[in-house]
């Protein structure tokens, strides 16, 4: 029996779809989008038959469903990369560095203006060794502009290296090889099937 969908029903379906999506963060983006669209379409059809609440209930535990989708993509025992861990690492390094730069600059500025609130002249901050390059502050009557203070290449190495390590991104190589092998196998079999 087809049932009409209210706004609340649609919200219920979208909630299930996006809950699933957040649990599928470790899937490649395109695959995740495809699964999201397919799930939404299937849920709408099910909701038209049995109602939105029951349609979502029939999906079962969304954690199990997401785990099954991940296992379907990467295999049961295949070790897989974690995009979310990689992204968190990048954000974490960025947050720490931003805090360091801000704190360092603020402390330097406070030191200058503490001794002379109307400071005028050029002052040199050596930055933080290995992490933040030196910075030149030019003061005119206590207000300043600055040049420098950039992150060193080491910070980017830490950021990207950390993302690779925490996200276990080297596992992507095995996943790509597996996908390529399956595509080749499929194409060969289709060609053989078409020729038969």
């Amino acid at each position, binding site marked *: 029996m087809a049932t009409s969908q209210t706004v609340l029903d649609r919200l219920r379906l979208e909630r299930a779809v996006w809950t699933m999506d957040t649990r599928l963060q470790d899937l490649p983006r395109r695959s995740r989008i*495809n*699964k999201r*669209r*397919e*799930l*939404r*379409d*299937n849920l*709408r*059809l*099910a909701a038209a038959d049995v109602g939105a609440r029951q349609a979502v209930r*029939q*999906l*079962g*535990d*969304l954690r*199990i*469903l997401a785990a*099954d*989708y991940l*296992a*379907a*993509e990467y295999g049961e025992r295949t070790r897989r990369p974690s995009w979310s861990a990689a992204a968190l690492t990048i954000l974490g390094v960025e947050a720490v560095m931003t805090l360091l730069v801000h704190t360092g600059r603020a402390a330097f500025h406070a030191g200058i203006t503490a001794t002379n609130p109307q400071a005028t002249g050029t002052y040199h901050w050596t930055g933080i060794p290995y992490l933040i390059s030196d910075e030149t502050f030019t003061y005119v009557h206590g207000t300043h502009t600055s040049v420098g203070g950039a992150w060193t290449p080491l910070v980017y190495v830490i950021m990207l290296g950390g993302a690779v390590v925490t996200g276990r991104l080297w596992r992507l190589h095995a996943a790509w090889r597996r996908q390529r092998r*399956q*595509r080749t*196998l*499929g194409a060969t*079999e*289709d060609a*053989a*099937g078409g020729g038969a």
Partner: protein
Amino acid sequence: MAPTHDPQLLKGVLSLLLLRLLDERESYGYEVVQRLRELGLTDISEGSVYPALARLEREGRVAARLVSSRSGPARKYYRPTAAGAQALAEGTESWLSLAAVVHPVLVRHPSAPPISAEDT
């Protein structure tokens, strides 16, 4: 009351059932679920069928194509590939062979009391 089925037993043959149904007619996810329910698997959940379809697609046993739909976005239809057809043939043979052994054992009438190991 509708009969319930052991999820573990069902999981073992779900791929085979999906390949068989898709071999008969290409279908989209929810349609496959409906067809399974019409066959008597009334307790099957969408949550077990959709990942199974995704797994078959990853393994190259089914291919998917998007078909535009009047009621919404394009719908994803699945059909078996040559590898899927081969897996279906092998799986069917394996299942029938196993069932030929298991079924008579399970349905036979126990004519004599079981013999314990100590008696032998």
